[in-house]
Each structure stands twice: as C-alpha cells, then as structure tokens.
C-alpha cells in the first residue's frame, strides 16, 4: 500500500536517509525501530510530507505522492507530544480537521461523537479541555483527531515515549486494540524494542540512515540479519573463541573466527534441554531476581556469560555454586567481523 523507493534525505551535507526501500501492506501495523538519530522519524515525516526527499519516491496504492502537499495526502498523524490544541476542548480538537474541510456543523457533530465513541470518550469528556484529561485519554483524543478525517493511513511518532513505564504498557495495549478496531494501515515510530516487538506485524530496524533489516518481530529477534540488529534487539551474549572451542562449538559447525552471539534465554544452567548438545561447567558469579525469571551471571572457560531462567520455584543457585551450562549451537548467530 505504501511504497518507499530509493528514498534519500539530506540536511545540508548530512545524509539523514540513504536508499530507503519499504513496502507496507494494507492494514499492516508497521514499525520503524532504531536508536536516536537513526532516521526513523525522518522517514515517517517523508511519508506524511513534512520532509521532501532529495531522491526517491513515496507512493500510496501505486500513486506517486512525493510532491503532494501535506494536506492532500490523506494521512493522519499522532505526534510524540500528541500536539493537542490546548486552548480548545476535546470536541474542538477532533472537529478541527473536519472544520478545515468545511463540513457542515451537523455532520461534524455526528462525526465527532462517533469518533469519541470509538475511542471510548463520553460526550461529557468531549466538552472538557484537553488539559483536564489523563495521559491515556489524551492519547485517545489524538488518535480520534487523526482518524476523524478518514485517512487511509495513520502515522504515530513515538506516542508513548513521554509516559511512565506502567502507563506505557497500558496504552500500548489500548493502541493495539484501537488499530485492530479501525483496521487502518499504521506506521509507528519507536526506539523501544519491546514496544516494537509486541505491537508490530512487521518491523524495519534503522541505523545511521539505512535499514538494517525488515521482518516479523520473531524473525528480527531470532534471526537478526546484521550484528547491529542482533545487539540492538534484546540482551545478548557475545561468545569468545576460547569459550566456543572449549564447548566444542567449532566441531558443531560454528565458525569461531566470526562474531558469535547467543540470546540469554537460549543458554541454560542445570537444565537438560533436548537440543542442548554443547555443555560446560560454570561457576555462578551473581544473580538478579526479577520474579518471573532469574538472570544468572556465570563464568565458564574464562568468559562471563548471562543466562535467563524461568522462575519455576526451585531454590536459586548461590554465588560460587558450580552448575552445568548448556546450549544449542544452532542458536548461535554469526556475523562477519
């Protein structure tokens, strides 16, 4: 539905985006993920028209919109700060785009109430000033306002970034629910990998103005295409040559001259998993108890390794305990140095 082809954006001599190619499907929840300054917001603003690319094309349903003015793109946007107009009521905020389109008052009233209902805002709440609403309600107003003009696409620029952890999780769920309800193609920008993994149908991981990988969350996580993606998504152990040789990984087809990584939960202590063909003795150096799971720091073959174990209620291993560390060589992700 949305196609970005060979997009390049430059600010003076700085190349913010280089050869960006993305194809987003109808109804998809697509996330741009990456660290600060990687180009994800620039790409989003190129789609919405706030930034003009120096090269490449943006098309929606096959129609080139690269030079189409912002207001004619029919793309709704939810801003990082929500950008709700503080001097207006909730009703006036949602009605703003409809008034610009010069719809008649009755139609606007009906549409605003309908949108309010869809995002669970009562008619009483519509009369309130936006400053009187909670963070969650403000987010819903921002979404209702963006969707009121019936856009084909909605773009969300880090809408949860300014919130505390608990509210972020709650609003994340609400957001997913709303997207399902409206069934609208959604482009979402975040630097939070957990948010990206839980919300998205597909993710594009950005780094220094280029896309490192596009894929489903599980693909990105388990089969990271590049060393950057592998390091950026989730916690990971980098395994040294001595460790790999010591556990016999070299004989199991692992190229020890490459940079080798394994996810924390893919290693086990004193758990005899069927596929864990490689083992070694290790000493517990420390542990962190998280309730749902325990993160052990162990030392084996001259290397410190972190291991995450599910909390099954068994007694915890203590500092100095000797344990058996095991893993499956197929879980190792290898990258050219």
């Amino acid at each position, binding site marked *: 539905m949305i196609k970005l082809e060979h997009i390049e954006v430059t600010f003076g001599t700085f190349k913010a985006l280089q050869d960006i190619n993305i194809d987003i499907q109808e109804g998809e929840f697509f996330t741009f993920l990456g660290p600060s300054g990687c180009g994800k917001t620039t790409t989003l603003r190129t789609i919405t028209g706030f930034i003009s690319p120096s090269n490449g094309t943006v098309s929606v349903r096959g129609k080139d919109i690269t030079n189409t003015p912002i*207001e004619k793109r029919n793309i709704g946007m939810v801003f990082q700060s929500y950008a709700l107009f503080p001097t207006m009521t909730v009703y006036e905020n949602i009605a703003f785009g409809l008034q*610009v389109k010069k719809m008649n008052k009755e139609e606007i009233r009906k549409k605003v109430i309908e949108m309010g209902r869809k995002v669970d805002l009562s008619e009483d709440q519509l009369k309130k000033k936006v400053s009187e609403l909670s963070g969650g309600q403000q987010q819903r107003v921002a979404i209702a306002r963006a969707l009121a003009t019936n856009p084909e696409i909605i773009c969300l620029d880090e809408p949860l970034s300014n919130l505390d952890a608990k509210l972020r999780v709650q609003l994340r769920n609400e957001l997913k629910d709303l997207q399902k309800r409206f069934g609208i193609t959604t482009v979402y920008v975040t630097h939070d990998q957990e948010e990206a993994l839980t919300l998205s149908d597909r993710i594009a991981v950005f780094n220094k103005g280029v896309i490192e990988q596009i894929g489903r969350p599980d693909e990105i996580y388990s089969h990271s295409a590049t060393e950057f993606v592998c390091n950026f998504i989730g916690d990971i152990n980098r395994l040294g040559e001595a460790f790999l040789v010591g556990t016999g990984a070299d004989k199991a087809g692992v190229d020890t001259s490459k940079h080798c990584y394994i996810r924390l939960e893919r290693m086990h202590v004193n758990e005899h998993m069927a596929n864990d063909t490689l083992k070694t003795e290790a000493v517990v150096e420390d542990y962190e108890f998280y309730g749902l799971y325990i993160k052990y720091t162990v030392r084996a073959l001259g290397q410190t390794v972190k291991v995450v174990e599910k909390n099954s209620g068994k007694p915890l291993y203590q500092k100095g305990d000797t344990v058996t560390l095991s893993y499956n060589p197929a879980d190792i992700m290898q990258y050219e140095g």
Partner: protein
Amino acid sequence: MKEKKISFTPEKLWSIAVFAFFAWFIFSFLLFPNLNTIVSVFYQDGHFTTEVFTKLINSEKAMRSLRNSLILAPSLSLTVGFVGISLVLITEYFDIKGANILRLGYMTTLIYGGIILVSGYKFIYGKTGILTSLFVKIFPNFPIDWFEGYWAVLFVMTFACTSNHMIFLRNAMRSVDFQTVEAAQNMGASQFRILTRVVFPVLTPSLMAVTILTFITGLSATSAPLLVGGRDFQTITPMILTFANNISSRPLAALLALFLGVATILLLTIMIQIEKRGHYMSISKVKTTIVKQKIRNPVLNVLAHVYAYFLFLIYVVPVSLVVLFSFTDSATIASKKLTLSSFTLQNYIAIFQKASSYKPFMVSICYSAIAASIAAVIVLVACRILQKRKDRLSGAMEYGLLIPWLLPTTLMALGLITTYNTPRPWMLNKVLTGTSIIMLIGYVIIKIPFTLRMTKAAFFSLDDSLEDAARNMGAKPFYTFMRVQLPIILPTVLAIFALNFNGLLGDYDMSVFMYHPLNKPLGVYIKSLTDSETNADNAALTFVYAVLMMIISAIVMYLVYGRGNKIDKSKD
C-alpha cells in the same frame, strides 16, 4: 539554456509587502532619525565640523550636566545596590517578622514610579513639604530648600530604582537551591560565610545586570533632577531638553544625546557579555526552596528589624500621604493639618467634571492604548516571520527592531523631532514634528524591543508539532495562526499590552519632546502642576492622578503577575 520563470503567487506578494513595510518602518523610525542625529552633530551647513565639541567644552551648563550625570550614575548604582540587596535579603532570605507586609511596602515602586513618585517625595520633603514644615517649626532657621540638589536626587532615585531588584534579584534569590545552604551549614560554615560564599555567587549575574541597568538609569535621569535637582544639579537629559528647545543649540542637544547613546550601548554590551558568561544553573536533582534564616546574633537581629521597618516607612509614607491627601480639600493640602472635616471626594469629582483635568488623562489613555496595540500587532507579524524564516533578512529585521533597546529615549525622541521637522519623501513629504502623530510613533518604537523579546519567547515556546498537526489536517498557515497559535500566546500578548499601556500612561521622558500643545499627556501635565508647588489645587490634582494611576498599575500588575502566580501555584 532554460530560462527561470519568476512567478508571483499571492503568498510571495504578501511576503514582499510585509518585508517592504518592515524595511520602511525600521529605516524611517529606528535607523534614519538616529543617523540623522549623528550627522547633525558633525555636519553643519554642508561641512564636516567638530565645532560642537568646542561649544560643549565652552558651555558651563552642559559640562556641569555631564559631570553631574557622571557623579550620579555610579553613586546611584552603589546606593540602589545596597538598598536593593537588603530588600531582597529582608524579604526572601532572613527571617524578619512581618516580611509579607514589608514586601508589599517595598514593592510600591512597581505601581508608583516616575514623575508621580518624585512629586510624592516633593510633597513630603519639598520647600512646603510636611516634613520640611515640621522641621521649620522645631528649628526656625532650618533651610526650606534642604531637599534640593545632588543628595535629594540621589535619595529619591535610590528608592525609586529598586523595582528591578524586587523583580530580577528576588527571582534569582528564589533560584538558590536551599540544599546548598544546608550543605554549607553541615560543613560548619557561619551565616556570613554562607551568605558571601554560597548565596551571593548565585545572585552575582543578576546583580551585575541590575547594577548596569541602574547605571544607565542614573545617566539618563530626567524627572528627579528636573523636580528636585534645583539649579545646581541638572543632569544630561534635562539639559538636552533645554538645548533642544532652541534651534541654535540643537547640535549641542544632539551631541549630549549621542553621548548618552554611546554610553548606553557600551554598558549594554558589557551586560550582554555578563549574560553570555552564563547564569548559575542548579544541578540539584531535587531542588528545594529557601527556608528563611534566623539571624542568630540577637543584637544584629534587632538592628535588622529596625532597618527593615525604617526602609518600609521611607517607601510607604509618601504613597500613603499622597492617597490620604487626595481625599482632602485644598486648604488642608496647603496647611497639612488633617481633621475629620478635611476629607472630601471633591478632588475626584472635579477631575471627571473639568475638561482641563480629565483631558490629559484621556489623552494618555488613548495614546497608550493605541501605541501598545500597534506595537503588539507589528511584533506579532515580526515574530511569525522570525519563527518561519531563519535567514539573514529576518535576522536583520530583528536587529533593526531592537535598536531602541540600545538607545536612550532622549536620543530617539530628539532624532525623530529633528528628522521629521522637514518633509521627507518616504513620509509622503509630510512634516511630522509638531503633529499629534509623532508622539504616537515615539510611544510605539520605544515599546517595540520589550514587546519583541517577550512575544518572541512566547512564540518560540510553542510546540512546533501543533502547527504540523494543523497542517496535517489541511489548515492553511493563516488559519493555523489564528485558530491554533494566537489563542495560545494571547495571554502573553495581552500581558505585554497591559505592561506597555501601563508604562506609557505616565511617560514623561518621550512625551516632553514630542507632545502636541493641544494634547498634553499626563506625565507632562503632572510635571507642570508640580512646578508650582505652592498651589494646593494643583497638588490635589496631582494626588488624584497619582492614585488613579496607582489603581491602574495595580490592576495591570495583578492581571499580569498576580493571576499568573495563582495559576502556577494551583498547578503545583
């Protein structure tokens, strides 16, 4: 080769028109008049000359005024600094009983300043003043003109110029992180050491800035020397006024104004450098507000209280007497003997009945309101341009509009009246000097820099994504400005309007050069009333004006600062 087509869209034409207006405005009112003043000093009869310097050196009056200003400015900086710092310490740092009432008393200069304040002091200490009459009764040989000259000017201005301390230094004091004081206490530092090593360094940048502002005020002092300076202590501005009234001595007036301008630019440059060196920034994670410090030495504590209340009396007595005597008949004002039967509302009734009494008030209200509105509109357009464009042209426009901030009012006023006393093509060959419009222009331009700085701050604090959101929903720039941005900054714009209106209402410095004889503004009218101090009717009128202006100022201050504080507190 492709030929580049130049297309004139309505938006482009509009921008060209707006820039053309600003170019004309800046050139006509801010740049050319001042350049013309410089030229008039050095070019006479088409020749370059330095004759005016010889004239200046040979003019005893002019040299004395220069010398007086150079004595007044530094001594005023010292006395105002001393009193100002002590006011802030009394109200914000030390535990002085009744600090809230003291603060109110010290802040009276915020609503009672300029020419009306000087006339208030004159009512008490002048030749026929209450205190002077009392002294004469006790000591028959007491000189009745004791409150005249350098010391009188210094005294009046010291207490009139502490407003900046009560605004800026007080804010700086409130930014002191109390945990730093506690940390010093914890390490065994004495109260004096904490004050000098921990608290004062935080205040230093603000203190330097207000000291320089005081120095500039001292250099360009107008009303105090005019009213209480007497024959022997006239400073530069009153002298410029005298010289400007005579065509043959106008170059001398221009040279003195130029001296003021150069001095102001130099001092402001120093102030900007101090500002650039940076203000103290609290690095505290959890900043705590100051807890008032009890003075542990009992003798010092009593002395501090005596000093605090003595200052309170100096501030409050003139205001109180002005208010009190505004409700008395002229016989009481003349005799200064209060009885119950003396009280009357006649002065207030008279001011609204006699055209000659209410006209100056109406003239000032109209001029101030129109000028404050024009300044607000011009600056709103300028700020919108500055927000949208960050190129050399808009940069030049901003600097151009800030010119009056660098130059003393006297120089600007003199520049305007000497430039537009002949037809100029860019003014459609109309002579402006002597017309009703020139004072309005003067009022507008002196308020532009303050309006620009404050409005620009409000504009730049707007979240850019609000405009993006409106554009995303299809709104055009003008619609976005009117419906989204203007409603947000409107409270600030109205507050600036109110402050400008209030500042212009009693203006004397600009008005005295430019007023139309048929439309005498309040400041000039009050000055003419005060000149004949023996006339009790005039004094009564002055008091009523003073009270009315205090009421207006108090309302403005409440609307601008009082309400804002309440909102801030409710947010906490």
